């Protein structure tokens, strides 16, 4: 139950557009749930609803058994949900270390301890040599790593990664895949959005395919690969 996420009948409308139309799934700790779908299918809107950027019109989201539907982003983060964005939203004019200290503002730990923790996470992400640089001096790929490091700093139970491999060098992609495997093996629940199907199929235990705000298929990798609806809507022929 510690990092279980359960989403039921989630609906989000923007005016006349229904971006999410009764989306539901669940994922357990130690699992990677891959989320695929064409652009505009509702994948990022789903993550935005889970992390509190958008308030869903109906449906429910439970994290570790706690209903977090419609709560504010910081409350959801405190419940153990972390995320990254397709275009990294790092704090550009702050050092890498300071980027990692912002999420632990409320931790009642000595500054020294927090600093050591931040440096350990940066070490893990191979960014330690750049720790005093400003985030906006990093390359796009490094910024994605930094955002991942910032997400990991408060040790979340559920991590949501939005297109982590988009525009990233293959070598860095491989390193990111290792990091995601390490998160999964460390008992985190991972939700992964990607258009890189090879990576999705390699990492995911379960995949959901979305189209026009609906889940059109869910199941194991083999099921999704052979699902005719998915092939028609997303993979083409």
């Amino acid at each position: 139950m510690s990092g279980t996420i359960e989403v039921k009948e989630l609906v989000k409308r923007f005016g006349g557009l229904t971006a999410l139309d009764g989306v539901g799934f669940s994922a357990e700790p130690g699992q990677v749930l891959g989320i695929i779908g064409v652009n505009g299918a509702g994948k990022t809107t789903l993550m935005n609803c889970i992390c509190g950027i958008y308030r869903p019109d109906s449906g429910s989201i439970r994290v570790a058994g706690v209903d977090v539907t419609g709560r504010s982003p910081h409350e959801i983060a405190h419940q153990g949900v972390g995320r990254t964005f397709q275009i990294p939203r790092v704090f550009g004019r702050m050092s890498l270390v300071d980027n990692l200290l912002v999420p632990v503002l409320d931790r009642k730990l000595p500054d020294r301890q927090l600093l050591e923790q931040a440096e350990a996470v940066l070490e893990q992400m191979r960014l330690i040599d750049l720790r005093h640089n400003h985030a906006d001096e990093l390359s796009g790929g490094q910024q994605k790593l930094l955002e991942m490091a910032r997400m990991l700093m408060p040790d979340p139970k559920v991590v949501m990664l939005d297109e982590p491999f988009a525009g990233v060098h293959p070598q860095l992609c491989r390193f990111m895949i290792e990091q995601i495997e390490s998160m999964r093996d460390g008992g985190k629940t991972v939700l992964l959005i990607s258009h890189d199907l090879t990576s999705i199929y390699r990492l995911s235990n379960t995949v959901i395919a979305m189209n026009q705000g609906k889940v059109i298929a869910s199941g194991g990798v083999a099921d999704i690969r052979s699902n005719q609806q998915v092939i028609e809507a997303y993979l083409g022929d």
Partner: protein
Amino acid sequence: MSILILNGLVNGLIVGAIYAMLGLSLSLLYGVLRVVNFAHGELVIAGSFAAYVLFSVAGLPPLASAPIAAVCFFLFGWLAYYLLIPRLSRSDDPETMSFLLMYGLSITLAAAMLLAFGADSRSIDYEFNPVSLAIGPVYIATARLYALGVTIVITLMMGWFLFRTLPGKALRAAQMNREATQIVGVNIVRLSALAFAIASGIAGLTGVLIALVFPAFNPFSGAEYSIIGFIVIVLGGLGNPVGALIAGIFYGVAEQMASVFLPQALAQIVGFAILVGTILLRPTGLFGWRAMR
């Protein structure tokens, strides 16, 4: 002539340091809340009146009333935030509503001061001993030197707070990306309340310094200081507190030098000329975000 220029430079630096305080507090507020506080000048003048009351009623010298004003205005800002600002987020158009709200608050504060103190200009009849100090060929009013000292202390304290403490780092993070700051677990409402309270505290303290340095103030003076504050934050780059500090000093020196070289009527429009020129030529401000590095 060279003494006149030197005098202009020194006074510009001191007046500019006070303008920098205006810019610092306004910039902090805009950066974190994205709210343009039209009532900032009225808060500043309320600080001047607070110093006036503390001196007239309790005999407290302005320098002693400065920390009292800072704390009282900090608390006022904290309360005012929770009373006024969170309601804006429920509006469909929070930015336009914030303009109207702050303009209304500005009128209300000015009217309250008018009711309490009347329309006459006031000044604090307090003199330092000696009244002025000679530094080389330049005579500087002791009050101005003290005011400069206070601004330096506040700047150092704010620098320490913003760059060395976790809440300060969170405030800077919110200036850079408000949404990402919330996503990583920072309570943005509480952080915004802190920014509003700090900005109000600095505004109150700046008001005390204005009462100390400038000859007089009245309930209508607030608009003038709001405008100066806006010029300073546009010059320094919106939401950039370090840029606001530098821009404040730049503006103060430009204003004082203009009064040395230009006729009185022309000198008064220098600030606006700088503002218009900056918006036309460099809309991100003279320092953009580089000064934060």
